[in-house]
């Protein structure tokens, strides 16, 4: 065994708190190590060349790189040693940056810890075996979860590139949050006017199969070969027959149904088409309000429907689709007003959320674009906007910035002035965050051209006084308390993960953070990938972001899928379980515990039963190895002996 050890300085990131030369010198004393050196940037091209040359010069057959996290550069160095003719699994990494140099200042302790960590890696490397991939076919269809602007962009880009797309949207229409907006910042162009054509494209594209009012029920498989179960929720309207004429909606007697599309700004009918531009433009019954369901009799819509599309007996339906990759664009949610008891916790009708105000501004909204306050349907003359309602507020459990509220408040202040010229807007803010192109100019316009009064301070309380809402806050620039008697208060409620985001993540086997946003493969370098091969992210599911960023991410995710699908065959990760048929006793406990059904029974000549791993199905978790009492099924690259070598290196009495 001839191990080569390369200790990276990572500039001063590692060398600053670890004596790298000492580590290298210590490694040269380790039996089996034929070469050890330290280098400024091992991942750089000359750094990698040095490894390649050393492999040839010193006839090395196992390589240990002590540098950053293997989650960062394992692949890089595997390719490096492969180019030098070694099997890529002859590489081991010791993480002396994230796990050592960055977390401790004591150079002596760090150096000692690094020496031991590298020794562990050497011990493991000496037990590394060559592993070889298998090829398997890719199913070149892609699933896009979420039909908001990010999901639609991703779907269209994939479809335009010739891929078959399955688009699943949980609400009755695509469009997402953007379809609810009136105008967009900083151009003040009409949101639905720019989104509508995309929605139509999605509907009409022959490569896109749209499942609206549907959810992903179950996901099985692995990159290249996923089996998806989609639940089509019952709409009680046969969408094949429904023409979207809207007659049912007009006649429906259940007039007080909650309008999800309009966030409850005004009631809707129990059978409804969510908005005029809806795609698909089909009606749907809300059984929580429909008299047929609630009282057991009505049937008005069934009588009125010219095509006989109404079906009160409709059930949820499960559909199976096979795909090779998944783009998750499941969007975001908004924090509940209940979180703000000091602002009335939703008890005051004239304290509303930004998205509700958006619907009041919108010409196709319930007030047809007239700003009328909910309590008495009068025009508000004084409107107060409260930014950071929940955002950047640890006591709400939301320490992060919601990214786009500053901008839409400015937009709404401008639109308020447009709609009601004699109105006055106040904006209570913490900081104005307007880093995009043309954004800061836009917030200035709101103040300078449209006279919105910006007060830097937080609002402590909102209470009603007569017909007014009194907003009490601080002006931290003046150092005084401020009270504004407003007609309408708009809260820029914080962006949260979409409801059910963690459950979807669990189905996808991707990580999510404390707040429910999905975790990208690397915050800078893999922003649309996840740690699960074949699953990509787009839009606010990954974190709050505005429309251009969401569209950009949608396209980025689509291009990742295109790249993945550019090959007909994928290579399997050979770090999967293998059975030693000589020692396997055929107790088959591994079959009982394998989460993927990757282990099957096999009869040898002579009738002996042993376990057998289907390599492409095995995901490499190693549950079987920890189950097997006789150590006959071993997870390659993480075998008992490899892990024991590490344990024995550090635990010696």
């Amino acid at each position: 065994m001839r191990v080569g050890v390369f200790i990276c300085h990572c500039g001063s990131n590692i060398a600053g708190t670890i004596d790298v030369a000492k580590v290298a010198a210590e490694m040269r004393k380790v039996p089996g190590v034929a070469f050890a050196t330290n280098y400024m940037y091992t991942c750089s091209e000359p750094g990698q060349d040095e490894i390649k040359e050393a492999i040839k010069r010193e006839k090395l057959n196992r390589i240990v790189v002590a540098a950053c996290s293997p989650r960062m550069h394992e692949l890089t160095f595997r390719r490096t040693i492969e180019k030098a003719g070694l099997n890529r699994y002859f590489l081991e990494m010791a993480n002396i940056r994230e796990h050592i140099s960055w977390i401790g200042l004591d150079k002596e302790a760090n150096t000692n810890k690094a020496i031991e960590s590298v020794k562990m890696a050497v011990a493991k490397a000496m037990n590394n075996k060559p592993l070889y991939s298998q090829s398997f076919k890719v199913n070149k269809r892609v699933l896009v979860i979420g039909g908001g602007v990010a999901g639609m962009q991703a779907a269209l880009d994939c479809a335009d590139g010739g891929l078959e797309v399955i688009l699943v949207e949980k609400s009755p229409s695509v469009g997402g949050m953007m379809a609810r907006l009136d105008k967009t910042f900083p151009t003040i162009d009409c949101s639905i006017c720019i989104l509508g054509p995309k929605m139509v494209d999605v509907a009409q594209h022959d490569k896109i199969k749209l499942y609206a009012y549907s959810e992903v029920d179950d996901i099985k498989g692995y990159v290249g070969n996923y089996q998806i179960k989609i639940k089509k929720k019952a709409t009680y309207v046969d969408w094949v027959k429904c023409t979207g004429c809207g007659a049912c909606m007009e006649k429906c007697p259940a007039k007080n149904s909650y309008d999800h599309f309009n966030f409850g700004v005004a009631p809707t009918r129990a059978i409804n088409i969510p908005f005029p531009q809806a795609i698909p433009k089909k009606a749907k019954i809300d059984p929580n309000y429909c008299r047929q369901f609630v009282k057991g009799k009505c049937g008005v819509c069934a009588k009125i429907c010219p095509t006989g599309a109404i079906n009160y007996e409709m059930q949820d339906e499960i559909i199976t689709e096979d795909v090779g990759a998944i783009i998750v664009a499941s969007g975001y949610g908004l924090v509940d007003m209940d979180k703000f008891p000091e602002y009335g916790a939703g008890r005051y009708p004239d304290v509303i959320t930004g998205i509700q105000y958006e619907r009041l501004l919108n010409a196709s909204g319930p007030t047809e674009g007239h700003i009328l306050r909910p309590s008495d349907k009068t025009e508000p003359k004084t409107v107060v906007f409260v930014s950071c309602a929940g955002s950047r507020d640890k006591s709400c459990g939301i320490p992060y910035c919601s990214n786009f509220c500053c901008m839409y408040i400015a937009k709404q202040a401008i639109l308020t002035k447009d709609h009601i010229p004699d109105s006055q807007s106040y904006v209570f803010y913490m900081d104005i965050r307007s880093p995009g192109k043309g954004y800061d100019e836009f917030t200035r316009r709101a103040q300078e051209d449209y006279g919105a009064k910006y007060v830097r301070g937080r609002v402590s309380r909102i209470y009603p006084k007569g017909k007014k809402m009194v907003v009490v806050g601080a002006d931290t620039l003046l150092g005084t308390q401020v009270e504004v008697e407003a007609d309408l208060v708009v809260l820029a409620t914080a962006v949260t993960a979409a409801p059910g985001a963690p459950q979807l993540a669990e189905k996808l086997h991707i990580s999510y953070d404390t707040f429910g946003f999905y975790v990208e493969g690397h915050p800078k370098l893999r922003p649309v990938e996840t740690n699960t091969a074949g699953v990509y992210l787009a839009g606010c599911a990954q974190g709050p972001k505005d429309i251009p960023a969401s569209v950009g991410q949608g396209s980025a995710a689509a291009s990742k899928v295109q790249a993945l699908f550019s090959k007909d065959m994928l290579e399997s990760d050979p770090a999967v379980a293998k059975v030693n048929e000589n020692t396997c006793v055929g107790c088959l406990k591994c079959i009982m515990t394998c989460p993927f059904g990757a282990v099957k029974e096999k009869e040898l000549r002579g009738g002996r039963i042993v376990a057998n791993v289907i390599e492409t199905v095995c995901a490499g978790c190693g549950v079987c190895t920890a189950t097997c009492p006789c150590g006959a099924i071993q997870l390659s690259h993480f075998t008992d002996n490899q892990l024991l070598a590490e344990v024995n290196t550090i635990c010696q009495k």
Partner: protein
Amino acid sequence: MSEIAPKELRIVGFLCNWCSYGGADTAGVSRFRQPTDLRIIRVPCSGRVDPLFIVKALLNGADGVLVSGCHPRDCHYTDGNFYARRRLEMLKQLLPYLGIDEKRFHYTWISASEGQRWQKTVTDFTNQIHKLGPLHSTTEAHSGS
């Protein structure tokens, strides 16, 4: 084995690649200071951790063992940590029966984003082990009975 600073005790950590190893990376990227006692062994999944690794470590010189995986329901391999939870709980309850303080073994769930939680876990567990002091592993009896 090189000389260990006498103030350090021997703590072995088994971390799943997808969540907890990433969590430890996140803590590193965020420069969250941690005690230096822990030595990390990367495993694909907490379900890979045979309880015998922990026993082996404790019998052979480790003063504490820490296992961390993805949060339940969030396993990269769907069910790996569910099996891990049963196995590790079994061991957690068995150790004191053998006279090994169960505080020397801790298992927990930390996601890739929970750098701060990782820092706290490492710090608290290291402190806990220091409070217990070195584990005088089974003394060598005369061989050959």
